[in-house]
């Protein structure tokens, strides 16, 4: 963070990247890409690159909110379940209640943000540890989605919803555009607003931030609300991809999102990390998944290799922590 800001004041974005904590995640990205490129001919095709980005868009979007929460020193285990709940209720609004699809989309956002606020409220005002709060709300969100839908997926959304999942704008898949826009927005918030500074400050030293007059509770509330919001945005893309509300979707997505954040160089204890790092982490994880699939590795072994790569990546970048 500080590195970033340092250099940015004095130079270009490029310069900031080469000297910043992003360098290690980037190097990892390059190495893994080259390895995969050797192992599979198709890897470096534009088509496959867009394919990877599109695949990662959903968890990549979840990882944005996760980055905010982790930067404050918290964690949000509920994102996958909240995404599923938002998608299910949104689909229910469109299909079962017969309302216009726009209302359904708004409903998704409302569900995401409300759950985020609930998490934030319990963490900040309830003074309960985020890991436990969001573990409980994960159960709650998951259960509510299943209760609401009776366990069945809800399909029958208007066709245009698929635009969010499979549409293209100027040749680029819409999910990728949504993801990149959200990352850009997150970058502005984290690097160019006082709220962003406060996010970093709380993760760096909560007591000090409080003593300096940072409204710690409000910031915590906000980061969880942002996480709920990005869960809702992920739900919209997911709806576009699945054309249905899936109450069982997103199991263990929170773990992938966390992995992206830390692969991107953020400290799990908070205070350090860049949103661009998370984007790199998301792409890195996408390449690993895609590459292992392309090479045709036994699916069981893929998890083992993924685990080892995560360990290696964290080990290499651990000096900075």
């Amino acid at each position, binding site marked *: 963070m500080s590195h970033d800001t340092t250099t940015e004041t004095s130079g270009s974005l490029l310069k900031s990247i080469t000297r910043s904590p992003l360098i290690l995640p980037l190097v990892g990205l390059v190495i893994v890409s080259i390895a995969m490129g050797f192992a*599979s001919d*198709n890897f470096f*095709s534009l*088509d*496959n690159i867009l*394919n990877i980005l*599109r*695949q990662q868009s*959903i968890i990549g979007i979840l990882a944005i909110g996760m980055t905010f929460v982790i930067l404050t020193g918290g964690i949000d285990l509920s994102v996958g379940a909240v995404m599923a709940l938002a998608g299910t209720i949104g689909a229910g609004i469109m299909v079962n209640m017969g309302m216009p699809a726009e209302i359904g989309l708004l409903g998704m956002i409302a569900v995401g943000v409300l759950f985020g606020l609930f998490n934030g409220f319990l963490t900040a005002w309830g003074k309960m540890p985020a890991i436990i709060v969001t573990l409980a709300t994960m159960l709650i969100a998951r259960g509510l989605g*299943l209760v609401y839908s*009776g*366990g*069945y*997926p809800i*399909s029958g959304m208007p066709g245009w919803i*698929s635009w969010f*999942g*499979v549409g293209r704008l100027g040749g680029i898949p819409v999910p990728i555009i949504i993801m990149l826009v959200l990352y850009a927005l997150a970058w502005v918030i984290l690097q160019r607003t006082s709220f962003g500074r406060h996010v970093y400050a709380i993760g760096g030293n909560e007591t000090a931030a409080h003593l300096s007059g940072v409204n710690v509770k409000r910031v915590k509330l906000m980061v969880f609300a942002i996480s709920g919001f990005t869960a809702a945005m992920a739900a919209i893309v*997911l709806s576009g*991809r*699945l*054309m*249905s509300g*899936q*109450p*069982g*979707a*997103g*199991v*263990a997505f929170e773990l992938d999102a966390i992995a992206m954040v830390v692969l991107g160089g953020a400290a799990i204890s908070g205070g350090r990390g860049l949103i661009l790092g998370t984007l790199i982490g998301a792409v890195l994880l996408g390449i690993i*998944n*895609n590459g292992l*699939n*392309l090479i*045709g590795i036994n*699916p*069981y072994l893929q998890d083992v290799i993924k685990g080892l790569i995560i360990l290696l990546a964290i080990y290499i970048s651990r000096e900075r922590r």
Partner: protein
Amino acid sequence: QDSAPDGPPKIGMTFQEMNNPYFVSMREALMEAAKTIGSEVVVTDAGHDVAKQISDVEDMLQQDIDILLLNPTDSAGIESAVRMAKDRGVIVVAVDANANGPVDSFVGSKNRDAGYMSCKYLGEALNGEGEVAILDGIPVVPILQRVEGCKAALDEFDGITLVDTQNGRQDRSVALGVTENMIQAHPNLAGIFSVNDGGAMGALAAIQGSGKDIKLTSVDGAPEAVDAIANGGPFIETTAQFPRDQVRVGLGMALAQYWGAQVVPSEIPIDVRVVDSENAEDFAW
């Protein structure tokens, strides 16, 4: 598709899960069959996550597969992957569970029948009376259909009451605890229907632990379940599906099209069969 292409087709198959002997044996049969025609096969495991399954299909399309055998974890959710594959001219055959969208064929068990047959068997074994419970599973269409079929069969017995439905998540350890609780909650429980053999094995352990006389039926025909049935005891029946045959038939449909067949059946239901102590010895997937 007018003329037969040269060389063996590249085959991709995506499974909803592979942590289940049912799909593992399906995969084995596929591998054997592909070997005989010299095809390269790519297999992926969605782990019950449709979003991942779509990604898996996308990755396989990157590898220019010719045939996609699709075992969808959710029929509606997988539609966009089906369309993508069709747009690329790939032959798509759904196996075990159907998929929305323009699939070329669907090969699958009659799941509703399976549930119906198991519960009919259970009801008859109980002489048409007593308390019965359902050990449910993951909320996907085939499982939901089995429960439907089961309920329909139980309805035919006036003396049988369905007293409880709990979710064992098709996982042996979870099903074990859930069944123990069901037995506690309903001291007069006489029968349990489990939606699959994984859950049934857990339920069996719970029944044996309780020492009660509770009859158990299930669906699948997994080796362990068949053994248990052959040995006698509370586990009296499983309605077997034929995973190996499903994939063989599915591949056959796809190959037919690949070689130029214009008309293939859009749906090939594979029968299910009652396996009980009478015929268990001779049964195997």
